Each structure stands twice: as C-alpha cells, then as structure tokens.
C-alpha cells in the first residue's frame, strides 16, 4: 500500500500537476509538495506527490554501484563463471570464499 512511483513533473497549475513515466501521464495533487518544479522527479502515492528524488543523492548511489561493478570487472570475480551456456545469470552463492 505504501507503493510510490517516481514520475517526472511536466506541468503544474496551482496545487495540481501532471506527471509522466514512460509515456504514461497522470494528474496529481501537489498539496504535499508545493515547492515542486517542472522537471523534478516526484514520488507519487495515492494521487499525491509525497516527496522528490534528490538527483545528487541518486547519482551518488549509482556511482557506488558502478564502482562496485567496475572493481569486480578489474579484479575478476572470485570464482570462475559457469561455462555451460545454460543461460544462468548468477552462480549459486558459495561459502567460505572470503
């Protein structure tokens, strides 16, 4: 029930706005986010914008994840990838490889 979807504010008039995600548009209330600006990514729950995505924080988290992936690519994974071509995206986790 606490599902909230980030959508981009593309227009606003008074306390209502129009948000968009992948071509889907919705009218929402900005009563809880009166300072929102066109272009902001807002968190939408039950017809209301309840929060905004902090782009700097989002970029920081993405940078952390990217670094994690790159470090592994550079150093290689701790074990061999399965070569069976069976389409398995992940290896089963193994223990005691730390």
């Amino acid at each position, binding site marked *: *029930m*606490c*599902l*909230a979807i*980030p959508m981009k504010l593309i227009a606003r008039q008074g306390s209502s706005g129009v948000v968009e995600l992948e071509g889907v548009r919705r009218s929402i*209330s900005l*009563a*809880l*986010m*009166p300072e929102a600006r066109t272009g902001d990514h807002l*968190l939408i*729950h*039950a*017809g*209301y914008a*309840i*929060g*905004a*995505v*902090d782009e700097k*924080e*989002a970029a*920081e*988290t*993405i940078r952390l*994840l*990217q670094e*994690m*992936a790159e470090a*592994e690519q550079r150093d290689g*994974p*701790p074990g061999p990838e399965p070569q069976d071509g069976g389409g398995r*995206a*992940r*290896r089963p*986790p*193994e*223990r*005691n*490889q*730390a």
Partner: protein
Amino acid sequence: MTKDHLFQDARIVRILIERLQAAALRLPRRITLMEVCGTHTHAIGAAGLRRLLPEEIRLVSGPGCPVCVTPVGYLDHAEALAADPDTVLCTFGDLYRVPSSRSSLEAAAAAGARVRIVYAADDALEFAREHPGLRVVFLAIGFETTAPTIAAALAKAEDAGIPNFQILPGNKRVAPALAALATDPAARLDGFLLPGHVSVITGSRCYAFLSEQHRLPAVVAGFTAADILRAVLALVEMVAAGRPALLNLYGRVVTEQGNRIAQELIERFFEPADAVWRGLGNIPGSGLALRAPWTGRNAAASPVELPPPSEPPGCRCGEVLAGRMDPPECPLFARACTPDSPVGACMVSSEGSCAAWYRHERRAR
C-alpha cells in the same frame, strides 16, 4: 545497460551476496532481521532474495502491510455502516476481500451494500461532491505514507464545504509498533530494515530510539534488489561489530526530517491514540484518531452494534505479522488458504507475507 538498471543488475546482486557471505562469517550466531513494509515483502519475494542470503541471516516480514494489521473489528464496523442504504463505503481495493468476523466487504457488496473501490481518498471526496444526498465514508487505513493524503482530502472537504464526506479512522504509525517489537522477547530481533516510503513522510530521525534505547541497528532502505541487499549488509556488519546505529541508505528520497508539510497536515486533523494491530494487540500511541474539532468527519462518532470480533479459525496471521512464524508453518498455508480463496488477511493483500511467500517462495522450498 542504463544506470537505473544497476539497481537490479545480477552482477551487483552477486557482489553484494558475496560481501554478505563474508560478513556473515563474523556473526556470533544466527540473526533475525525484520522488514516492516509490504513493498519490501513483495520486492524480496519477487527478486528471490531470501534464498540467496547466507543461512546465518533470517529475514522476516513484520507488520508492514496496513491491510493485514487492520483488526477484524474495523471491518465489522465498516460493514455495520454499510447496512445504511444511504451510506456508500469507499475503500482501497486491498481491503475488499479481507474476511471480517461474519463476512467481508466483497460479500456485503454482493448482498447489496454500497461499496466502491477507489485509488485515493480524493476519489472518494469527488464521489461525495457528486452525490450530496449520500453519506460517503472513506475507509482510512494505511501508515504515514497514506495518512497525509487522507488529511489533504479532509482539508479539501473543509475548504470546498463537502459535508457528506467522512472517514472511518484506522491509520497507523510505524514507530510505536517498532518500539513494541523491539521489546518483544518472543520476536528476538537483531535489526530492522526501515520502510522507505513511510520514511519519506516521517524522516529518518524518528527511528533513532531503536539504536539509542534498544541497541538495535536500523537502516532506511529503498526497494530495488541492490537497495535491500545493501541495507541487509549494513545491518549484518553493525550486528557483527556490536555497534548498532541508524543509517539512511535511501537518501535519494528520504531526509532526516521528512516531509514537514505532510506532517503538519496529519497533525492538523489527527492525534496519536492507542490502536489495536492484528497480531501485536494494543500498542500505545500507534493509531491516528481524528481531533475533536473534526468529529463531524468521524464515521465512528455515533455508536453502532458490532458482533464480537472473531478471527478465522486456524488462521495464524497474527504470529506471521509479529515475525514469530514464517507463512509455510501455518497449517492452512497453500492448503485451505490460497490467494484465490484466502482465509486470512496476509493472503489477501499482494503485500501480505503469506501472499508473497505463496507467489514467490513456495516452489523454491
């Protein structure tokens, strides 16, 4: 691969699982971590995270599904209101099929009661505006994420002069429930994954008491596989080091102080009150009651006769919600109780623990 996909990337998931395995070796014993958000329950099931975790880490779902924790007496009350032919109930869809003591809203509607499923409190308000001769009662359930949207609808009803819009108060506050769980000797929890979207409203700071008073680590977490695993890893590291703290790993939408405007709107219409949670019983200050000036908006203001509340026989939702039991341990699970024919609330809502286990983890076991 776009950047957003990193949050669900199989490689990132594997790296985090490997780090978790290493961290788990430093744990003094098997530990239990609890998430308290239906969206986490669903996301953990859908990504299959539980069976990737090292066996030292038990991840349980707590009372994070608002529909599931709503006590049966609330539904009985809603049904009693719907017996009046000039009353229309408006409800979130999740509540529609939850069994009451004698029936359900769905069965009541089939028998002629007027029940409408709405997406938001505003939809109920709009219906009230269009039907001034009817009493429209919105079933106000949900945590702090939802409460401000209901307060905002009440504010609109006041501003626009729509007298026939009422609510049946049933909203709940997460922090007092966490306090109750933190001191529950039967739950034996070692840390909390805090609900991301509740925290958008409340802010993260209000959970500091978990580490400061109860020595339990707590991490505000987002909803992707990477978000959840990073939070679990942080919890495991804090338990292993014996240094509990409050961390916010969902900083892209959660701030320390939360959404002040939403908090003020809740404050204008509601005040904390004792409330009964299915499975946890009465928790002081965990409910939201309408303040005295708004008694006219309270559909529960005039007394109605209710049957003694009775839970479905054999249903163990209460123990599941308190983290004392995993869904498959209930004798009804996947036998008498399935999503098509649910016995208990936790199987009805897609965010309920039982529904999530049925859907995602049954075949894996």
